């Protein structure tokens, strides 16, 4: 490992020695192969753990499981390329889960990023005091694993323990956190709580890289704090906002931990097909793997389309 022994006897060899000498036959080959060898462990595992599952899912989604009669005989697998996909597109529970998550994303992502942008601007404001503390406070929830955050919030929501409702009781109000209309937003709150601080830090870092001269120029031109924030700071963090939006959209699509943790205590308002991933998982639990695979493929395609569309739209506006 030590530096000093590295050169050794070989160091004495002049650079020209590379052209002659014993290993010359292998050199060109190994030159090209070495970087690939560096990548090999990652690539091999990547192929096994990323590419293979995709192919596996795509292929297995093309067969349908047929159960005969009363299901007394073993189910048989039949090649039926569109069977699972047609079934998924007619499955109210699955379509409902897609709609629910779309609604979730459309509301939660802007709310969370609005909050994150606001907090980043506040932290960046000259008037802010105790920046270190506030940054840390927002950052701590990110340090809490998603499942633990959901567990903690399940206690915030549960009628048995809710300290929030205890506080609200003084005002004579009770929040039905697990009500069937409310529960989606209870989940949204957990996600917002977990990720707002993370996004704040990314946006704050982008704010920090605005050149001081630009801000000084705005000040000289007579721009106040709000004007500077709106006309200079917000446009300057567009890249960070696009990125955090895409990551948040992807995060919404794979919504699973929070509803799954709340499900047993939600008194039935979180169904087993509350989100697409939960729906696919319950298909696995029911033994219908190909159907679960088809749902995964549909979800992956939708996420891809949404991400690419969003990148395209924001990219076009930038170049226009």
């Amino acid at each position: 490992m030590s530096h000093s022994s590295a050169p050794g006897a070989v160091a004495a060899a002049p650079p020209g020695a590379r052209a002659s000498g014993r290993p010359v036959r292998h050199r060109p080959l190994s030159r090209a192969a070495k970087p690939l060898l560096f990548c090999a462990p990652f690539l091999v595992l990547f192929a096994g753990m990323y590419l293979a599952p995709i192919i596996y899912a795509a292929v297995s989604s093309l067969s349908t499981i047929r159960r005969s009669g009363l299901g007394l005989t073993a189910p048989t697998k039949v090649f039926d390329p569109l069977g699972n996909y047609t079934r998924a597109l007619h499955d109210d529970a699955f379509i409902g889960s897609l709609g629910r998550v779309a609604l979730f994303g459309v509301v939660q992502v802007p709310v969370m990023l609005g909050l994150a942008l606001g907090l980043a601007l506040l932290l960046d404001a000259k008037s802010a005091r105790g920046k270190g503390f506030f940054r840390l406070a927002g950052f701590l929830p990110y340090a809490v694993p998603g499942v633990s955050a959901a567990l903690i919030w399940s206690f915030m929501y549960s009628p048995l323990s809710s300290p929030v409702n205890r506080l609200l009781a003084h005002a004579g109000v009770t929040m039905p956190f697990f009500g069937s209309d409310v529960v989606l937003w209870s989940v949204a709150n957990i996600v917002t709580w977990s990720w707002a601080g993370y996004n704040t830090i990314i946006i704050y870092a982008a704010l920090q890289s605005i050149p001081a001269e630009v801000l000084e120029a705005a000040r000289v031109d007579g721009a106040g704090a709000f004007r500077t924030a709106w006309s200079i700071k917000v446009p300057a963090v567009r890249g960070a906002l696009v990125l955090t939006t895409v990551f948040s959209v992807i995060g919404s699509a794979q919504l699973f931990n929070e509803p799954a943790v709340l499900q047993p205590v939600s008194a039935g308002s979180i169904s087993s097909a509350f989100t697409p991933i939960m729906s696919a998982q319950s298909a696995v639990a029911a033994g219908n793997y190909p159907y679960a695979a088809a749902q995964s493929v549909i979800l992956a395609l939708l996420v891809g389309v949404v991400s690419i569309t969003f990148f395209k739209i924001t990219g076009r506006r930038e170049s226009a």
Partner: protein
Amino acid sequence: MSAISTARTDPAAPGTRPAQTPHRSPSLRPAPNRRASRRETTVTSRVTVTALLGLSAVYFLFPLWWLLVSATKPFGEQFSGSGLWFDGFGLWDNIVRLGEQDGGIFWRWMLNSLMYCGVGALLGTLFSALAGYALAKFDFPGRGAVFGLVLAAVLIPKVLFTLPLYLMFSSVGLIDNPLAVLLPSVVSPFGVYLARVFASQTVPDEVLEAGRLDGAGELRIFRGIVVRMLLPALVTIFLFQFVEIWNNYLLPAMVLGDDRLQPVTVGLVGWNASHVAVPPPLVVIGSLVSVVPLLLAFLALQRFWRAGMTAGAVK
């Protein structure tokens, strides 16, 4: 540790300036006149900004405060009172009870979590570093394709691979096997991405060239020189991956049916779902015990986190 903290090549440098950069720090002088100078801040704006930030801090800290307070209450009183202030001290007793439930399985879960996350992140960091470094510093056929794959994989939800992985693992008999958690955990496209960013920023070509002229092999250059230069970045990648594995609930929940193999997150959720068999206060105490090590790690290693986040964000 000293090597890390004194390293000259700090990946935190781009994008993450210290909180108080000289040109932005507010003047210590109080504003003489509201209208006269816009540079100074007014009392009103200071109060408003601080109040809004304070409100956000209450929101972020409230559940954690409740967890801390509740877990220290005497056993069985977790859900009584407002939950906002300490009321008797039973933390040690609570932790003892936590360890006694189901034959001490809680500590086994914690060890499992540490093992999955530690081994997974260590190997994952190594593989990411090798691949990221090669992508940053070598020109080879297929480089663009590999990097394209990495970027695409960063953008595809990892959860989507979990169900097919479960199917694959069950067809080769890897269910209830720690490898079923470890193998997917070791692959980190985001780690490769970070390693590539960091390597192209912090490893100068001249150093590599010098190493080659000295006759050192590529692997030796990597071990002896590159790893040292990348050390702070490697810590960052390790931390990110550690937490990613800790956060991945669906994979272990699906591939590990045997509760003696489960990580603490899966175990606790199982307890939470079985209210009858396990007293709910144990879930509160278990949540605190499982979250504290991560919180401490975050606090201690903050600058690495920020380096990783902003390197991931600034393209």
